[in-house]
C-alpha cells in the first residue's frame, strides 16, 4: 500500500474540464491524499451525480460510479450498506447536491452514513452553460435569470448542520495546502463528512470567490479556523471575533479596550458555536464578518452502516432462522 503514489490514482481517461477550472486542483489534491489514507485502491469508490464536478470519478483509477442527477447519496447508501468495508466518496456540486438532490443529501446527513461528501460549490450550473444555482447570490444575472435572481441562496453549511451533519468544513480550490488538510480531516472522520469546496468556474462564474482567494482581499475577509486557537484575522491578525452572549462581534485588538482574553477560541466540538459560525455568510447583520474556512464542527456518533449491520447480526444471533423454516411459516398442514 505504501508504494502508491498520486499517479496510481489517475485513470487513463482524458480530462474534459475547461482549462483553468478549479476542479483540476481538487482532483490533484484528492489523488495526492489517497496514497496516505491506508485503503487499497480497489476498496475506494467514487460516486457522483451529474454536472461538471460529477465527471470526477472517471478520472480516478479506483472504482467509480457516475450516476444520475442528484442521486449520488442514494447510490452511495446502497454501496455502503452492501459493503461497509468500502471507502466511499461522493462528489457533487451545488446544483446536483443542493437542488435536485437536496432531499437525498439531508437524509444521508441525518443518518450519518460513513462516507465523505465533497461539494464543489461554484454558484452556477456549468455543464448546462450558465444558469443560476441554489447557491447563486441574490440578484445574480444568468441566462435563466436575465433580470437577476429573486431566490435567496442556500447557506450550505447552515443547511447541512441543521440536517444533522456530524462533520462540516469549508475550503477552496485555490489553497492547495488547506484543501489537502481538509480532505485528510474529512477522510479521517467516521460518519458523514461534508466538505464544501469553493470552486472557481472560470467560464461561467469567474472570480466569484475572489474576496476569499485573492491575497489582497482575503486577509481581511477570511477566518481560518483552528482547533483551540483564537479566532483572529487581518494582515496583522489585528481583528478577532468575540462572543457577546449569543451574538458574535468583530473586534479590533488595536482598540485598547480589548485583549486576547476577549476573543473566542475555536472549539470544533461545540455545535451551538458552530451554528453561529455558519451564519458568517454575508447575510443581513453578518456583512462585516469574515468567511470562515476549516473544520466548523465534528461529532462522534454511531454511523448508519454500523447500526444497520449490528441489527442484522444481533437478529441472526438472537433468533437464528433458516430459509426452510421461513418458507414453511409458523403454521402449515399436511395433506
Amino acid at each position, binding site marked *: 500500500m505504501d508504494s502508491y503514489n498520486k499517479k496510481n490514482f489517475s*485513470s487513463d*481517461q482524458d480530462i474534459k474540464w475547461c482549462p483553468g477550472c478549479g476542479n483540476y486542483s481538487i482532483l490533484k489534491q484528492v489523488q495526492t491524499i489517497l496514497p496516505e489514507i491506508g485503503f*487499497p*485502491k*480497489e*476498496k*475506494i*469508490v*467514487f*460516486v457522483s451525480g451529474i454536472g461538471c464536478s460529477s465527471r470526477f*470519478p*472517471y478520472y*480516478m*483509477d*479506483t*472504482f*467509480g*460510479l*457516475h*450516476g*444520475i442527477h442528484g*442521486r449520488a*447519496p*442514494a*447510490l*452511495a*447508501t*446502497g*454501496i*455502503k*450498506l*452492501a*459493503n461497509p*468495508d*468500502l471507502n466511499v466518496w461522493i462528489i457533487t456540486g451545488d446544483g446536483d447536491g443542493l437542488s435536485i438532490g437536496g*432531499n*437525498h443529501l439531508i*437524509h444521508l446527513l441525518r443518518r450519518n452514513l460513513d462516507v465523505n461528501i465533497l461539494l464543489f460549490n461554484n454558484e452556477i450550473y456549468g455543464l448546462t452553460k450558465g444558469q443560476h444555482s441554489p447557491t447563486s447570490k441574490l440578484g445574480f444575472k444568468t441566462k435563466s435569470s436575465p433580470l437577476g435572481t429573486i431566490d435567496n441562496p442556500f447557506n450550505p453549511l447552515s443547511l447541512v448542520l441543521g440536517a444533522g451533519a456530524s462533520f462540516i468544513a469549508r475550503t477552496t480550490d485555490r489553497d492547495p495546502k488547506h484543501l489537502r488538510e481538509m480532505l485528510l480531516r474529512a477522510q479521517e472522520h467516521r460518519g458523514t463528512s461534508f466538505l464544501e469546496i469553493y470552486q472557481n468556474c472560470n467560464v461561467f462564474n469567474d472570480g466569484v470567490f475572489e474576496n476569499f482567494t485573492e491575497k489582497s482581499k482575503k486577509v481581511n475577509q477570511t477566518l481560518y479556523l483552528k482547533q483551540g486557537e483564537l479566532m483572529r484575522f487581518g494582515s496583522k491578525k489585528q481583528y478577532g471575533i468575540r462572543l457577546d452572549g449569543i451574538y458574535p462581534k468583530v473586534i479590533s485588538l488595536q482598540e485598547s479596550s480589548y485583549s486576547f482574553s476577549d476573543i473566542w477560541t475555536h472549539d470544533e466540538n461545540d455545535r451551538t458555536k458552530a451554528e453561529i459560525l455558519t451564519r458568517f455568510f454575508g447575510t443581513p447583520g453578518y456583512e462585516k464578518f469574515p468567511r470562515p474556512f476549516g473544520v466548523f464542527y465534528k461529532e462522534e456518533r454511531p454511523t448508519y452502516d454500523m447500526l*444497520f449491520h449490528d*441489527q*442484522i447480526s444481533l*437478529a*441472526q444471533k*438472537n*433468533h*437464528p*432462522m*433458516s*430459509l*426452510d423454516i*421461513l*418458507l*414453511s*411459516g409458523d*403454521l*402449515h*398442514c*399436511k*395433506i
Partner: protein
Amino acid sequence: MIFKKILEQVTILFAGNSGDGIQFIGRQFTNTSAFLGNNLSTLSDFPAEIRAPRDTLAGISGFQIHFGSVEITSPGDFFDVLVVMNAAALKKNFPFLKKGGKIIANTMGFTSKSLQLAGYTPDVDPLKELYDYDVYPLDMIGHSHKLLQNFNISQKDKEVAKNMFALGFIYWLYSRPLGYTEYCLKQIFKKNTKLLQANLNVLRAGYNFGEISETERFIVKSSNRPSGIYRNVTGNQSITLGLATAAIQAGLNLFYAGYPITPASDLLNYFASYKNLGIKSFQAEDEISAITSAIGASYAGDLGVTGTSGPGMALKQEGLGLAFMLELPLVIINVQRGGPSTGLPTKTEQSDLLQAIYGCHGEVSIPVLAPSSPSRAFTVAFYAAKIAIEHMTPVILLSDGYLANGSELWRFPKTYQLDTICPPFLKNSKNYSPYQRDEIGVRRWVKPGLAGYEHRIGGLEKEDETGNISYDPKNHEKMVKLRQKKIDFIKKKWPKPRIDSGKKTGKLLILSWGSTYGIVRAAIKILLSEGKSVSHSHLEYIYPLPNGLDTILQNFKKVLIPELNNGQLIHIIRDQFLIDAIPFSKIQGIPFTIFEIVEKVREII
C-alpha cells in the same frame, strides 16, 4: 350430538367498520382454514382511510374467503355467509348474498342511528324482515360486556373484543379449532395479560354460544390436492419469500429499499422482519432513493430490490433507465392500484402494464413478469431475480392490490428442490473490459473490492466493450441493439405458453395475464360444462413475449383479452401478432367476477 353436514365449498364475507378488526378476523379464519388443508382464495376490500366514517357504506371494510375441499381459484362471486358488524355492512353486501344464505349480525350495529346512516328506514330492523334467509342476530357487544364486566380494561377494548365473539361462533359453525387464533392472541398480547384473557374469553364464548344454540353445523373437508405440506400465503408475502430465496440460492445478500406506499408497504414490512436471515431492508427517504440505493447495492454486489405502486413507479423511471444502462441486476415490484395519480390507493387495477413495458425514456427494454396468484408469486419472483442476476438487467414484477392482499394455500418448496442461480461474476480474466459480453450478451459483474479490476461505469453512453464514454453515432446505435438483443435472448428461457384449460383449437381463446387467472379459470370450468368451444391461456412472462404464443393464438377463431384496465395487453397482442383480439375491460378497482367472464363469452359465442 348435532349432526354435521359436509359442504364442498363455502364463501364467507366478514364486513364492518374499518377499525372493527375485519381484516384481522378474516386472516385468522383463513389461516385456520389453511391449517385444516382447505383450498382457499381471499379478497380484501378496504377504504383508503384508516378510520373512515363509522357505520356508512363508504367506511366498510370487507374480507372475503372462499374455501373448500374442491379446487378454488377465485374468492367467489356470491356469499353463503355474511358476517356483518353493522347495518351498512349488510346494506352494501346483501345483493351478493346467495338466496337462503346466512347472516350473522352484530345487533348493536343496527341501532336506529346506524340504520339511518346505512340508508335503511330508522325504525324497521332489516334483520327481522329477511324471511328467506338464515339470520343469527347476536348481541356481540352485550356478550362481551357481560363477560368482561369484572375486567379492568377500557370500554373501548371491551367493544373491540366483539369481533372475537363473531370469530368464535363462525369457528364453531364450520367446525374449526380455536388453537391457531389462541396462539396468535398470545403473541399479540404477550405484554398485556388482561387483554389477552379478555379476548380469549370472548372468543371461547362465541364458540360456546354455538354449542348451546342448537344450530346446524358444517364440515368442509381438506383439499383433494396432491399430498404434501402446505401453508397459507398472501401475494405480498410470497413475493418477498421468492426474492429472499433467490438471493440466498444465488449466494447473494438481498438489499431491499422501499418507501411506504399502499398496497406495497407490506413488502417493506416483510423484508424488515427477515433480518435474522441476513436480509437487508432500508426505508428510503423517497421512491427515487429507494430504487437508486438498490442500484448502488447491486453495483456493490448485493441483489438490489425495490417495490412500490403506481405513483412511486413513475418516480422510479429515472432509476430504471440507469439500471438498464449500467446493466446491473435489479428487481422492481409494482403492486398496481387504481390510477392515475393517487387514484384508488386501496383498490386493484392492472393499468401499469404499458408503463412497465414502455414507461422508460430512451430505447429501453426491461423484462416484465406478472404472477397469476399469491402462491405463484413465489416462483415468478424467484425467476424474476434469476433473470435479473444471470442476465444483468432490471426486471419488473407486476403484482396488484388484489394479488398482494389475497391469499391461498401454497405447497412451499424445500430449498434443495430449487433451481440454481449463477451470478456472472468475473472469473479470472487477463483482458477485462467492463462491457465485454458473453455469448448471450451478458457482461461480467465486478464488484468494488476486486484488486486490479478498478473501473468506472455510469449513465453516459459507453463504447462497446471498454465501457468508456462514447458519443460516437454508430457506437450508440450498436449499443442500443446489443442491449435489446440481450433482453430478446431471455425469452428463449421462458416456459412455453400453453392452454390452461379447454381444447387446443376452438372458437374462442381467453388470453389473460396477472391476477385474473383464477377467475377466468373458474369461468372456463362453467363454460366447458355448458359445452362451449372455449379455451384459456395465461401469460405470466409478458415481456419479451414468449415464443410459441402465435401458434396458440392461430388455433382460435377469436381471442378475448380480459383486463382490469382500459385495454393494455391487447395493444401489445395486436401489435405483435396483427390479430383483431376482442378487449374486455373492467376498471372499477375490483376483480372480475366469474359471472362477468361467463356472460361475456356467452355473448361472443
